[in-house]
């Protein structure tokens, strides 16, 4: 079980991404965290190279819809559409459904309890 936690776009707030990375690691998941300001294309490449089961995208700037779309499109275009994409961050309630419609496996908006996130990743990648 291997997960890539990534920060797409320009947003530099990485507390949430790092906390989730720590929690997943403690739960026995192999975690790669790619750092700030990765482009969707870089994230797609890294997900494929690292052969991960899932990608967790953390976005707090409001740009989650275009960024998630580009990651999903990129994975599909590279024949890696089976890698599940999970989005967390400041996601307004109305955008949760829109992200799911794009193909995001699960959205964890603000206020999500950490154990719920860990549980989902474990189930999604087992």
């Amino acid at each position: 079980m291997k997960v890539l936690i990534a920060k797409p776009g320009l947003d530099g707030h990485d507390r949430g991404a790092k906390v989730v990375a720590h929690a997943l690691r403690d739960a026995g998941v192999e975690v790669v965290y790619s750092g700030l300001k990765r482009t969707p294309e870089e994230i797609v490449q890294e997900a494929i190279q690292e052969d991960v089961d899932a990608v967790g995208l953390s976005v707090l700037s409001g740009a989650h819809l275009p960024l998630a779309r580009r990651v999903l499109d990129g994975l599909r275009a590279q024949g890696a559409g089976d890698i599940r994409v999970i989005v967390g961050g400041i996601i307004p309630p109305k955008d949760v459904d829109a992200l799911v419609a794009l193909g995001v496996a699960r959205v964890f908006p603000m206020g999500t309890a950490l154990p719920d996130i860990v549980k989902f990743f474990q189930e999604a990648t087992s």
Partner: protein
Amino acid sequence: MRDVRLHAGIPVKPVYGPEDLAGRDAARDIGQPGEYPFTRGIHRNMYRDRLWTMRQYIGFGTPAETNARFKYLMAHGQDALNVAFDLPTQLGLDSDDPRADGEVGRVGMAIDTLADMEEAFAGIPLDRVSVSLTINGMAAPITAMYYAVAEKQGAAPERVVTTPQNDILKEFVARGTWIYPVDPSLRLVGDLIEFSARQYPRSNPVSVCGYHIREAGCTTAQEMAYGLAIAAAYIDMMVRRGMAVDDFAPRVSFNFTCWGKIFEEAAKFRAGRRLYARMVRERFGATNPKSCMFRSLIGGGGSAFTVQEPENNIVRGAYIALAAALSGAQTMALPTYDEAYTIPSAKAQLIALRTMQICAEESGAADTADPLAGSYFVEALTNEMEAKILEELAAVERMGGIVEAVKSGALQAEVARQAYLFEQKLVSGEIPKVAVNCHVGERAAEADREVELYAFDPSVAARQVAKLAKIRGERDDRAARAALSRLTDEARGTANLMPAIMEAVKAYATLGEICQAMKTVFGEHKEPVKW
């Protein structure tokens, strides 16, 4: 009996008494308000002479929209501004840059050229309103634009009061709007401090932020320790550049949060003021008492706010305002109750402003200087907090000093570790959060769809890009190119870059072009990804 431990790790006793202050010299360590070492605050009469400045953080969409919100809050009694820029602006990307896709005007206003800055401050007299600019990696060009607007308005330089944040070291630790590698980034910080100290004597050309590092997860004592270490790094740099400490230190300011336990926060600031005063006098040899004053924006702390039952955040905001007042804030800013959802609505901004005004006018918190002085608990805690801050400063030294700790990522890793510890305590309930991990209602709290939220206007990017194209078409392109070329040349040397940046700004070179003109020489920062 319940065990109580503060965020800094200090245990709290149920009762404090005179024995907790034994062996301390009150005259030396506590002193009087307005006197060295300023434990009790930096002014003799504190808020009786002058209330704290109220400075809500504002900016979204286009400069015109932000200008309208500025005027709305000023019409309701806000007396100063605190400007938010969008991420492309903070990172030196023009609105039509592909990397800006989806981010234009999102978390602040978009600025591409001087024309945008002119529009943002239209009708706002810059010789009378003090303006804080939350900008770091691009502080030099954005402040240059601000100075150019002030000049166009006819404002005398000695009357221009602006506070560019210009604290790049904390951006490498938290918030992440770094652009260039650490060393050239520090050079730009120094160029702006030096230029401003000489040309704009009432500007505050650096605002050292513990705030964002705390928001990223560190403890109260670490927040103060890292802030003091960063301030020392800047002061040391300016002294090495040949400036006398008293020529710039009086205009160094701070930006800290106070969202935690009220007495711990007050003690943190009382200890911090004492440590800073002693450091600037003893280590750097300052003789002007103003050089030794820890002047701070205190407030904020959106991480204290919850998405569950968001109206509860209004109450949390009132306690933050009280803590800031008891901590001796010069300037106050509060997060808004919709903080966890999005950038603030006008209504949420007004409630935050009203909260500060009620604290100032009605609560009595502003009636006398440092009302907590002499409390057995607060004085003992101030001493314990001072010891903790010194421990954390020693830890930074073990990492090789603050600049090395930032370059290696060791500090970033420590902050992430603390963030995870904090989260675990929220999960276990050790840190209580009402309606989140205690006193939770029967139905699991969901995101409240009833909250009136700021609605992002998707047409912002197109409008901003069209305006940028128009400016590029209308400007004297040759003058802009010549200014950019001069900037690149001077970046190769060691001269202060502000004059070249001012020239480029006035020639309507875009922020993206100015950023790139220096990137050609400086390169880009490569993040040490440590967690």
